[in-house]
């Protein structure tokens, strides 16, 4: 009897600790995650909008866009072409197909629905350049071909979006990695020469190693987040808030006033 009572008591304590821990990490039911991204001409209004949202929301902050590199694009692109291939049509009605068959890459170019160019090679890069050469000759290279060449030749990282939020306490929710790397600007800019078969990078995503954060879990309200204070430079992109049901219409109206459109709203379970 005493053992059962002890067991029940232990179960109650465990239940209480679990519930308490959960309540610290989660908003109460009926709350909403609201994210408003500001257009380029309204970025200077973020602070003013945030001030207004804070009067209504349970919690609100500005956020910036950053990325977590989790893989390399060459591998992703090779797999995509191997499994699915490239099949695109340009505005001047030229269709390009690149696919892998029996261990070789085959390029097919159709003009007005008639096959007018074929090329087979062992090498993916050679296949992509052959398609690009044909595209240049016909006046338009499909963006997928150039993008694939960038991935194959320069092998930039595969990026996953994350929010940079100024918690200023070392918060990080995201994949567990040995050394956390964050990309602040994920843009790729290149010059290319089809004739010389060269891709010259002007800008590539550069990752910074972030050491002064602690991983608290996989996701924060479903999102990857990293403390903006732990990063060298983050541009403000919008407002993120946790809002109760009663205040939701007001918060939406405030944000619409500044951005001209509905914010993204998701109920928090």
């Amino acid at each position, binding site marked *: 009897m005493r053992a059962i009572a002890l067991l029940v008591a232990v179960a109650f304590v465990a239940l209480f600790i679990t519930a308490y821990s959960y309540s610290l990490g989660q908003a109460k039911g009926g709350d909403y995650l609201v994210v408003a991204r500001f257009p380029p001409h309204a970025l200077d209004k973020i602070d003013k909008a945030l001030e207004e949202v804070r009067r209504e929301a349970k919690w609100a902050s500005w956020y910036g866009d950053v990325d977590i590199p989790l893989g390399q694009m060459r591998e992703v692109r090779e797999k995509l072409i191997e499994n699915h291939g490239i099949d695109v049509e340009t505005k001047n009605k030229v269709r390009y197909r690149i696919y892998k068959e029996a261990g070789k890459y085959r390029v097919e170019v159709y003009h007005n629905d008639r096959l007018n160019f074929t090329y087979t090679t062992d090498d993916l890069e050679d296949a992509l350049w052959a398609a690009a050469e044909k595209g240049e000759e016909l006046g338009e290279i499909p963006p997928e071909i150039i993008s694939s060449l960038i991935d194959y030749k320069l092998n930039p990282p595969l990026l996953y979006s994350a929010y940079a939020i100024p918690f200023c306490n070392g918060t990080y929710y995201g994949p567990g990695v040995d050394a956390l790397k964050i990309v602040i600007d994920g843009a790729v800019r290149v010059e290319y020469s089809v004739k010389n078969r060269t891709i010259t990078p002007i800008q590539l995503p550069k990752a910074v190693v972030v050491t002064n954060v602690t991983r608290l879990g996989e996701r924060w309200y*479903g999102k990857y987040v990293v403390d903006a204070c732990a990063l060298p430079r983050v541009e403000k992109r919008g407002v993120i808030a946790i809002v109760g049901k009663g205040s939701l219409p007001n918060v939406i109206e405030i944000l619409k006033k500044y951005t001209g459109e509905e914010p993204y709203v998701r109920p928090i379970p």
Partner: protein
Amino acid sequence: MATLLIAAVVYALISNTVYIEGCLYMPGAYIRYSTSGAPFYIIATLTDLIRYDDYYCRNPTYAFSYDQVYLEVFASGASYFERYGRCVELGESVSLNVDASRASEHGTSVVHGCTSVKSYYVTVKYTSYYD
């Protein structure tokens, strides 16, 4: 007599928005939209994401918040190409400050390349901004 010339500059911002949608019918499938022009800023937002338990968008199922697709914006000109792409969830965006002096084409593409789910139906809102 000194002449005071006052030039009034009216700052006019023009934006164009299009929605593209369709079925990413298997991993590797993609949808692309492109058009002519040289905007200074482009942005694409994933506004709908429906997950399917079968290829070709058959058997819709609950879309988990962790579902992702690869969303990219790009601009290109003579021998020039710029892009920004990443795996995004529902409601998230990718944007790019375009070198308008070099770009003559721009657009967006969405690729089923971040998960091994059978298929997704997606809607992407794409906006380009011109001075």
